[in-house]
């Protein structure tokens, strides 16, 4: 059976910062949504439904905040869905919204994801109590560092790769006015001299804690025809999950990530991702995840991802730019981080990415993951509508 093609016609985000003390949670999400509406030149009345996502409610201390946010997002009298799939939630939220359009349930949908981390303490929120996790597992870095170490051992990557990624992403962020970290004096040496937090992850190779929101307007073919600016067309989208902990799990390159990418490529008719995809916005909260995900997503053979990074292929002017926006390493409102990846992919193919625009970006992958590398959501967007 046929699906309705889905187009992104509006993107809005806040300037991400450590603490937005000038606005409430409602004020924050409203700002991003308003900007997305302005981009699409639509009003609140044009929106048929709202799909909102964020990572755990404990981060702000509000249970099911969509109830409280219904007014701020113009959802009164409309359907409102709340998605939560851990760190992948921003991507999943966009995909749930896209399904409403693809299924022809709604014509135009506002989707939004946010996190106002300054309202709480993410380190606490991410340190689950025993017996659910082992003691002394401080935050996400404590969970992921051993898997980075496993990757280094398995691939033989030199220990300089992580700092190259961080240096690149922080420089890319300087070109993105919405990015949280704008480190104008960044140097490779400064990254390499930063304190070791969770060996082998250094301070400058980790993501910040940000307040921010990201919104998109998704619409059908008719809505796209009326859009004032070029739409980004969804060519494929998928989610995959696997259990957190089990004997057969490969934490370095989870099967769920490979399967998710394969599904997206099948939908989009991508035979060779390295050749057919122009740029990638991937979820890299710790620098080493760039080479790890390059392999998991099929851009490099197993053990070879770090060579793409080392040779400059993933630089903004490289052959396969990765995290043109500065990535999660430069901006991390956790619940929104996945949607920012999806939105940046859309901005690139719309030619709306400003100073970090990749020339000729026609097909761009947006990627998000969450939990203990167990939840994946991805979409591939293109400048041209899907063939069928």
């Amino acid at each position, binding site marked *: 059976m*046929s699906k309705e093609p889905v187009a992104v016609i509006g993107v809005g985000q806040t300037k991400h910062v450590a603490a937005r003390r000038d606005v409430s949670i409602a004020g924050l999400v409203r700002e991003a949504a308003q900007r997305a509406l302005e981009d699409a030149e639509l009003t609140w009345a044009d929106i048929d439904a709202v799909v909102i996502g964020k990572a755990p409610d404990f981060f702000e201390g*509000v*249970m099911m905040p969509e*109830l409280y946010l219904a007014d701020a997002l113009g959802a009164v009298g409309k359907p409102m869905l709340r998605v*939560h799939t851990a760190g992948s939630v921003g991507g999943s939220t966009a995909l749930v919204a896209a399904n409403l359009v693809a299924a*022809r349930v709604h014509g135009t949908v506002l989707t939004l994801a946010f996190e106002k981390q300054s309202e709480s303490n993410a380190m606490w929120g991410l340190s689950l109590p025993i017996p659910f996790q082992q003691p002394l597992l401080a935050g996400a870095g404590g969970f992921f560092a051993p898997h980075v170490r496993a990757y280094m051992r398995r691939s033989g990557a030199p220990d300089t790769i992580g700092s190259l990624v961080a240096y690149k992403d922080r420089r890319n962020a300087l070109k993105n006015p919405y990015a949280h970290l704008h480190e104008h004096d960044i140097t490779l040496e400064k990254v390499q001299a930063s304190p070791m937090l969770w060996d082998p992850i250094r301070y400058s190779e980790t993501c910040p804690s940000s307040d921010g929101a990201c919104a998109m307007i998704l619409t059908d073919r008719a809505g796209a025809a009326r859009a004032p600016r070029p739409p980004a067309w969804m060519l494929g989208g998928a989610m*995959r*999950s*696997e259990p957190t902990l089990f004997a057969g799990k490969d934490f370095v390159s989870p099967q769920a990530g490979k399967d998710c990418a394969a599904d997206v490529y099948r939908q989009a008719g991508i035979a060779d991702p390295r050749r057919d995809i122009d740029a990638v916005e991937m979820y890299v909260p710790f620098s080493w995840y760039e080479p790890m995900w390059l392999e998991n997503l099929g851009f490099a053979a197993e053990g070879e991802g770090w060579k793409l990074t080392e040779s400059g292929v993933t630089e903004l002017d490289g052959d396969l730019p990765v995290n043109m926006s500065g990535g999660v390493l430069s901006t991390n409102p956790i619940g929104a981080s996945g949607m920012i990846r999806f939105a940046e992919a859309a901005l690139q193919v719309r030619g709306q990415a400003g100073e970090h625009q990749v020339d000729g970006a026609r097909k761009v992958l947006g990627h998000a993951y969450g939990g203990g590398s*167990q939840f994946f959501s991805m979409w591939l967007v293109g400048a041209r509508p899907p063939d069928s």
Partner: protein
Amino acid sequence: MTSEEAPAVREIAVVAFAQTDHRRSTEESSEVEMLMPVLHEVLAQTGLKTADIGFTCSGSSDYLAGRAFSFTLALDGVGAWPPISESHVEMDGAWALYEAWTKLLTGDADTALVYSYGKSSPGSLRDVLTRQLDPYYVAPLWPDSIALAALQAQALIDAGHTDEPALAAVGARSRADATANPHAQLKGQIPHGDHVVRPLRTGDCPPVGDGAAAVILAAGERARDLCARPAWIRGIDHRIEAHGLGVRDLTDSPSTRLAAEKAGAFEQPVDTAELHAPFTAQEVILRRALRLGDDVRVNPSGGALAANPVMAAGLIRIGEAAARIHRGDSDRALAHATSGPCLQQNLVAVLEGDPR
């Protein structure tokens, strides 16, 4: 798009339903342990295995579990290996079912497993639910869920739509009906009790309990393969209202009415309605909003007044309505789920069996 060009809408049905026995406390088991038997049972009803399911979606709340990312471990109970296509809403499972329904509509999957669960026993539910309120102006005052429902009940009495004896009768009927429901937490003749918050007495309020539920959806012929009499989802819609109680008419539920209209509930009469009305006065409001006559069998399961496992109670309404169609006790049933204080958000589904 003109109607000639519109492709036929895919037919989707509830083909299986299972739930736990709902109990005041299940401290001897984890959420995964509580959920596992329900997942096994619903799969066994259809003969499907986890790997056969096209899409999985769940509903739950971290605040009940008292722990961030609580749903991630529940996935272990599903047995998500090899990896599955899966999603989660931080809402009642009825909305997880809605997401699964849209997924099946796109044609990306033919079957879906939907589950939800909630354990209220580890904390004080009345206090926990205050954390749903506006965090700056309302939540700091800790107005609890029963106090807010009492505000609504009093408004309804003041408007002349009901009185305390009528509310008592709703409670008594629900718990009498629940005697036929092996999963219900409260059943039989129970004294209506003293006021908790005027005008609500203990008998006007739902029991606090732990429980889980699961449903399997299937599209088209697949549904007929899996179930002798599928409960076809003829329409499903949900709507939200303003959060602030001061800007709502608490005696009415316009979001329920609108959702029902969009779901096609008013096009033909229903014979059964499973309403997610945790408080007696809310049944009165929902009956009016849904224009249910006295001939409609309301909450034959006993409803949320007999068992209200938070985050699963809405999905159970859809499951109970579907099960009646599966058994031939109903031909056209309405199922309703609610979320938020004083019926802020409401979902309505219309289910039908094939003609007999």
